């Protein structure tokens, strides 16, 4: 950045015209030096690395995750009350509802932070039961956090490699003696992590410590880290909070690209423009109960939802 | 012949203890070797070392010896212009885990040809092998654990009677003089305390009806005191050093214990009397050492040097040093020569006749009982006659 700014100018964060194309910003040094063709080839590689062995078109629409009558009580408070819904392969499902409706709690139940008082969470028709949290992640549910939680002292790249490690098998002994698998996995992990950083558009600051990144970069880093675990389901908890409208547009295209790469996305968000803009289906919670479930259009017109949540139609909601 | 007939109330803290008449302190033997020698000593730049506690645990016991050693070296150097011996002091802090470090230093100092020490049994045990390997002769003026001499160390010489001598004397005193029927033996966790307690218990036989343990550094004894009180023994024998003995005796008396208390050489120091407050009064102390009251010149010179009375093992330290100095005066320059010299040494000292057997033990060794009276440690009985 130059020290003197002659003219107040507004940087326009580029909204990529093609939602599937990678962003124009946040590229790594290597890519910046490439020619056009090289870049095209490189981005193909990135896409490959981001979704390595995912057969994108397979089983779209099948039930991937299912909540069956999940109830969770905290003392006298029923945070989730017999909630049932399903998440289908390849979709973006919105989870909305007023404050304190139980959305984050839903994530917490799915990822093993809380155990449901009764009911079941099933992934690919297997109950998660009392699986340990890290097992659940390996089974394929990854998440971001409403209050950003990164490994502050690690670089962005390392944060993502930690996510990638969830799929690695090097044993302690293997690492101690640097067995071939260690090398293979390290290479693979770093490459994949870098590809993911490019994918979410923050590769230019791969070498920065997470805590020093601006808020928006941190949110995207969380997404990259979660993706690195190669989840079947990516759960995003208010990813657009604190973004301005232009940044939200970027985010929406990113979420679409994630889905297009074969991930299934579960999205909690209060910004109706985002929710209505990207989701395929929406589940609405209120006071821990599911009150609606349907396409964005259906939900928007549902009087119960309007009363409970949307209130006066939001001017942002297109 | 014992003196059981005399049953007067003593001035001590015990109500029912028999009064015992004190034996006089022995005079200085006329043929005692002195460090000054004939004044014709010839030697190079050589030194001897004192190793033992100086500022560490039970420091007073170490200082008693160290001052004896210092006095001997001073008298020697004053009398022998041709042989100026340096005294090197090493503070082992009295603890077996600190001793190896300083002993290593002493061994690595090639000018040291002989060692007075180590002061305590535990530390002596920890380092005996190192001296043996280095061939550096040691004469201990105070370590009394009998087993020390049974390790096969060729460099170990003990300048006093061991606990196998002290224990029967103590047992005889408790049984014959104090007429105690039930005795509690309290031991600390040191080599010395454990060894002596076992020997005393053995000598007491069925009279030793209870056993208690304390730890080095312990200051709070309510559990032990409670256990002793509930047993109501006639006498308590404490086997250990004064830093623990003082608060223990104080807490025992505080709790209302009225029987006799007996303790060994490890407790025999004014520091004990001071730290125990008034409770030390009437405590009996055994020691394989002589009262120095009879050694008038020694006592005077010692006081001039150290600014206090000679105490436990001051004369013994002096004697041990004298032996080493005499060897140096002869011009011995190597450790093997010194070792050989000490092994074959024979002569009278202030305290006893010195002639070591193959294990490094002496044959003729005194044991005395003392008593705390009016805040002072005074001699009571020569027990060597009572047991032999």
């Amino acid at each position, binding site marked *: *950045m130059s*020290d003197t700014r002659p003219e107040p100018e507004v*940087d326009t*964060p580029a909204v990529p015209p093609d939602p599937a194309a990678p962003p124009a*910003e*946040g590229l*790594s040094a*290597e890519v910046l030096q490439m020619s056009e063709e090289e870049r095209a080839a490189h981005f193909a590689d990135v896409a490959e690395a981001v979704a390595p062995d995912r057969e994108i078109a397979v089983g779209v629409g099948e039930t991937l995750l299912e909540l069956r009558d999940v109830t969770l009580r905290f003392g006298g408070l029923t945070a989730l009350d017999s909630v049932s819904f399903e998440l289908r392969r390849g979709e973006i499902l919105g989870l909305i509802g007023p404050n304190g409706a139980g959305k984050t709690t839903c994530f917490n139940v799915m*990822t093993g932070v809380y155990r449901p008082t009764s009911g079941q969470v099933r992934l690919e028709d297997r109950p998660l039961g009392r699986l340990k949290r890290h097992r659940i*992640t390996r089974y394929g549910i*990854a998440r971001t956090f409403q209050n950003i*939680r*990164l*490994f*502050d*002292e*690690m670089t962005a*790249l*390392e944060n993502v*490699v*930690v*996510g990638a*490690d*969830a799929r690695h098998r*090097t044993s*302690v002994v293997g*690492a*101690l*003696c*640097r067995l071939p698998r260690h*090398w293979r996995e*390290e290479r693979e992990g*770093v490459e994949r992590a870098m590809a993911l950083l490019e994918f979410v558009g923050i*590769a230019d600051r*791969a*070498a*920065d410590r997470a805590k*020093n990144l*601006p808020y928006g*970069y941190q949110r995207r880093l969380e997404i990259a*880290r979660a993706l690195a*675990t190669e989840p079947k389901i990516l759960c995003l908890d208010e990813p657009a909070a604190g973004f301005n409208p232009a940044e939200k547009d970027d985010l929406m295209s990113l979420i679409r690209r994630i889905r297009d790469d074969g991930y299934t996305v579960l999205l909690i968000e209060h910004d109706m423009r985002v929710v209505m803009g990207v989701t395929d289906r929406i589940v609405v919670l209120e006071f821990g109960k599911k009150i609606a479930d349907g396409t964005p259009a259906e939900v928007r017109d549902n009087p119960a939802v309007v009363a409970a949540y949307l209130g006066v139609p939001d001017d942002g909601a297109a | 012949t014992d003196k059981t007939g005399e049953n007067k109330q003593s001035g001590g803290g015990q109500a029912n203890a028999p009064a015992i008449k004190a034996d006089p302190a022995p005079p200085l033997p006329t043929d005692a070797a002195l460090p000054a020698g004939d004044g014709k000593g010839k030697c190079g730049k050589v030194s001897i070392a004192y190793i033992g506690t100086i500022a*560490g645990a039970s420091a007073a016991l170490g200082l008693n010896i160290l001052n004896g050693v210092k006095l001997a070296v001073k008298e020697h150097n004053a009398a022998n212009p041709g042989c100026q011996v340096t005294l090197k002091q090493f503070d082992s*802090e009295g603890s*077996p885990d*600190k001793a190896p*470090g300083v*002993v*290593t*230093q002493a*061994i*690595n100092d090639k000018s040291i040809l002989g060692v007075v020490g180590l002061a305590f049994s535990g530390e002596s045990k*920890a380092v*005996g*092998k*190192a001296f043996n*390997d280095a061939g550096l002769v040691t004469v201990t003026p105070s370590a009394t654990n009998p087993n020390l001499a049974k390790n096969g160390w060729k460099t170990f010489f003990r300048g006093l009677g061991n606990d196998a001598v002290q224990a029967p004397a103590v047992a005889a005193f408790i049984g014959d003089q104090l007429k105690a029927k039930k005795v509690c033996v309290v031991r600390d*966790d*040191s*080599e010395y305390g454990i060894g002596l307690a076992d020997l005393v218990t053995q000598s007491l036989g069925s009279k030793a009806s209870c056993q208690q343990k304390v730890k080095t550094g312990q200051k709070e004894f309510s559990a032990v005191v409670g256990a002793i009180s509930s047993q109501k023994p006639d006498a308590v024998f404490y086997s250990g050093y004064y830093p623990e003995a003082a608060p223990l005796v104080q807490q025992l008396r505080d709790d209302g214990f009225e029987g006799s208390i007996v303790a060994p050489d490890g407790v025999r120091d004014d520091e004990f009397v001071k730290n125990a407050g008034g409770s030390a009064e009437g405590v009996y102390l055994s020691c394989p050492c002589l009262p120095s009251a009879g050694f008038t010149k020694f006592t005077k010179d010692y006081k001039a040097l150290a600014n206090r009375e000679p105490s436990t093992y001051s004369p013994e330290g002096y004697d041990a040093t004298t032996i080493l100095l005499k060897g140096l005066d002869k011009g011995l320059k190597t450790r093997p020569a010194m070792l050989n010299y000490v092994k074959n040494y024979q002569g009278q000292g202030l305290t006893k006749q010195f002639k070591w057997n193959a294990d490094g033990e002496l044959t003729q060794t005194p044991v005395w009982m003392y008593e705390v009276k009016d805040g002072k440690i005074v001699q009571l009985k020569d027990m060597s006659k009572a047991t032999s």
Partner: protein
Amino acid sequence: MSAGVGTQRDPGTARQPFGQRVRDWWNSRSRAEQWMITIPVVVLVYLLPMLNVFPLSTEPWTDYELALFNAARLGLIALGLNVVLGQAGLLDLGYVGFFAIGAYVAAIMTSRDSFLHNPHYSWLVVVPVAMAVTMISGVLIGTPTLRLRGDYLAIVTLGFGEMVRLLADNLDPLRGNRGFQDVGRPPGTHADGSPLFTQTDGKPWYWLTVTFIIVILLLIGNLERSRVGRAWVAIREDEDVAELMGIPTFRFKIWAFVMGAAIGGLSGVLYAGQVGFVNNQRFDVVTSILFVAAVVLGGSGNKVGVLLGALVISYLPDRFQLAPQYRFLAFGLALIVLMIFRPQGLLGARQRLLARGRDAYKRLVGAPEPVSADSALTEQGKGGDR
């Protein structure tokens, strides 16, 4: 320059801290250059006992070679504790327990005071057995306690360290204060047939320990730059999230504990061998805390840093001898002052977490791996290859 978010950094306003500059400089060397520096340094370290000259020497107070050995031994301990404390962030105040176990295993297996009645196990057998026993005790201690977080772990480990000492105090076969004499030493003789390893000669001990340190440095470095090291750091940073990112946190914590324990056990064996005597006195909380102090002073998490910390804590008191009580007073005050002036430790922590880190960052970001308080990009950006 790319659009959007970011901040200007003002390179002129703050000078880089010294440790930082050293590290930046080091990281910008090539591998070959690094080796060219490392090898002479290692040789120098091995030659240290020969440099018994004025400013270095600790004589006449302390035998110089033994002072070196003791510093190296504390370095080894600090290295082990660093795995637990610096890497995994587990505040272990009872590390001395493992040190003690190592020493006692050696004593029991070799001393003639042992209840095994004159056992004669070779030192080469003792080392693996001692390490195995400490590792097992690491698992035994870790399993119930490592589920605890943060300072709960601190007090429990402190309790564990005390318990080891109290057991040594109270269990008759462990001989309390009396201890075990004549603990076994490594084999080997001089040309004249006298034993190589003795209580009085520090050199062989020092060399042996330095060799152990180098081997362990390499191994630990391997771990650090692997998923294990990353997992440790992640756990240290945010244990909940680490677990939610698929890290079996408990297992990795145990591993950290066990590795630390093994190294602690090893140094216990070395200690017992050189001193030749083991009793219950050297294993108290204060000693444990000294270990922690070495790590934090050097820079928790930085391998080279903690070695430096150990050197300071062990060598300085030997170098400048004071009366014992003044020594501790000076030591306490020095700790306070040092920590005020170098709160990050002598060398701050920033380990490399990626095996291919240097290459990866160079290629992908156009900068060496970052070690600075902020972006490496800016440092490099000035060079302007973008």
